[in-house]
């Protein structure tokens, strides 16, 4: 066990998988010499050389499209898109090809690639550098969409993503990169993709969140206990798609109340699917409308105002209280 930041934990996952498996190659802008603008790939070029860590020219569609070709060949490319706000440049490569090739070839070919991208706000970044649009990928059949919530889950999910036989979009909450350290086992650890987990147990209310929203959710849960004597269960999705609704349904069947939290804009966002699954699967157990605490249906504002956009403990607690009194 070593205490490390999420940046270090992802670096560890990449390093170990590269050491284990020479099919794993990295490509992206500034990931080599520079170690990535967030230093996630720091030092990997020194260990593995320019043959396995490719500093690419500046073109996201080429990064994704080339990775599709590499993956078809049998490699396990891990590409970095410098910020998720620039992943739309390669949307067509992901939708038209990465997501479809196994299906189009009747299972004969496949695209085991990972596309990493930092997402979300909270680091006073320039515009286009703070959005959360995981719903785009979650709505795309053929892709998997994963978002870890801290160092340990990031490491374990990254290993799983690299080994996954299908394309995985891997969003990294940049607000978590260096926000805290966690014990990460030195030996191998994976978390199966497509499985959520309970990070706090509770009988009165279910909170469903992921990524950078897990910490405010947990804090909100503590506050609710302290001030209202309410025990909130907190579920960390980890995988957004395929969405694991088993745990959340079990939980809501017990609690009857739910708050769904994400940074992404509200409308047509992940919270809508989560809410709908709960409505479909636990309708008769619901005691109150499910509440969404989300980003507004706006572009995330420049950083002087972003704290007003991103859900915080107060908004979560308020929503939980409204849910509890109904």
């Amino acid at each position: 066990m070593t205490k490390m930041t999420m940046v270090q934990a992802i670096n560890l996952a990449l390093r170990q998988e590269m050491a284990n498996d020479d099919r794993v190659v990295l490509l992206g802008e500034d990931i080599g010499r520079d170690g990535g603008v967030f230093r996630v790939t720091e030092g990997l070029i020194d260990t593995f050389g320019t043959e396995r860590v490719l500093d690419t020219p500046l073109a996201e569609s080429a990064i994704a499209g080339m990775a599709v070709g590499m993956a078809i060949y049998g490699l396990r490319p891990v590409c970095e898109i410098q910020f998720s706000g620039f992943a739309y440049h390669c949307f067509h490569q992901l939708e038209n090809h990465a997501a479809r090739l196994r299906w189009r070839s009747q299972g004969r070919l496949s695209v085991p690639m990972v596309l990493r991208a930092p997402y979300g706000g909270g680091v006073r970044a320039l515009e286009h550098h703070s959005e959360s649009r995981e719903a785009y990928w979650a709505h795309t059949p053929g892709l998997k969409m994963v978002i870890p919530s801290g160092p340990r889950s990031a490491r374990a999910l990254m290993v799983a993503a690299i080994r996954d036989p299908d394309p995985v979009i891997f969003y990294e909450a940049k607000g978590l990169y260096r926000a805290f350290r966690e014990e990460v086992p030195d030996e191998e650890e994976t978390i199966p993709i497509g499985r959520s987990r309970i990070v706090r147990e509770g009988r009165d209310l279910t909170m469903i969140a992921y990524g950078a929203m897990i910490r405010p959710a947990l804090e909100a849960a503590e506050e609710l206990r302290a001030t209202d004597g309410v025990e909130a269960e907190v579920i960390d999705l980890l995988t957004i798609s395929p969405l694991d609704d088993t745990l959340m349904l079990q939980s809501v069947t017990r609690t009857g109340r739910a708050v769904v939290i994400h940074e992404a804009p509200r409308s047509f966002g992940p919270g809508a699917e989560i809410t709908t699954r709960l409505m479909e699967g636990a309708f008769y157990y619901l005691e109150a409308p499910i509440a969404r605490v989300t980003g507004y249906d706006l572009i995330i504002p420049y950083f002087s105002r972003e704290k007003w956009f991103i859900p915080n403990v107060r908004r979560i607690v308020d929503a939980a209280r409204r849910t509890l009194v109904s």
Partner: protein
Amino acid sequence: MPRSDIAVTDSLEYLSILDEHGNLDRELEPQLSAEQLLDLYRAMVRGRRFDERLLDLQRQGRIGTFPPIKGQEASQMGAVFTLRPSDWFVPAFRETAAEIWRGRSLESIILYFNGFNEGGLSPEGRKDLPIAIPVGSQVLHAVGLAWAARYRRTDEIAMVFFGDGATSQGDFHEGLNFAAVYQVPAVFVCQNNQWAISVPVSRQTQTPTLAQKAHAYGMPGIQVDGNDVLAVYVAAAEAAERARNGGGPTLIECVTYRLMMHTTADDPKRYRSDEEVDQWRQRDPLPRFAAYLQQKGTATEQQLAEMETRVLEEIQTAVESAEKRMEELGDPLDMFDHLYAELPPHLEAQKSALAGEIAALGKEVDND
């Protein structure tokens, strides 16, 4: 300090060996064996006749929309003929002759164009990608394949096909740039068939050639008479060898013509003249090559005719077997296969819901 011209040192050439009047440049003529020449010719004839048959089937409503290749047989066969089985072949959607040469069955093509996902199954062990409909997008896959081939220290190369229209896409640009930067063993074959649906190449780009776009990437470019299978072969063989020997990628522009409609849903009379089409008919790659084979003594007219007959029989057999096969296919539940390596729970649920509906339907039908 001054104002001075900058010289571009990458080569840019035009190549033609056997012209439409039968003139042959003996110095440039490739040394192909009789067997190779006949293989080439047979593949071109197969492409032509199968195309015609597909058009019939489409007109009879026995398959859906498809893009005819007529006129482009030399341009694709001359190029793909230079590949080894161990090389990677990355088609666009108008390379039927090349796909068949690489081993794709006629049946699978019929299935595909009749709306059966089963038509996507490529021959096992073949290094062929399925067709790519999003124009230009496949260029990047070839770059990735070629990169991986070199990473694995093989002598494989990747050859990718695309049209004149595709050269306008960002993916074409990004792909050629990456290929040149990484000096991957790739050959980029542009079938310039003069039209991208209704847009002539003169309105697709302001440049007089497509080959010169190679200069934007620091790679050699060559323009060939795409209806001259010998010229295409020579250009492709050179490019393939260069790629195999670590010399990096090449852009080949095959100047050819789409003699038919864009797809069977298209009516080319809306945008181009019969005269233009007639002119290009004069430059048909097949008769030119047939005459060459006869002059050279590689085959008699009679032998070529027999070859055609055998090709037609082969096609007939394929059509029959495909139609039989399609009667057996079509279980709707199959659509849940192959999206992921493993069916995730939500799709499992959706699949069994559909299975339930189908069972109920069956009962209704039984009860009728």
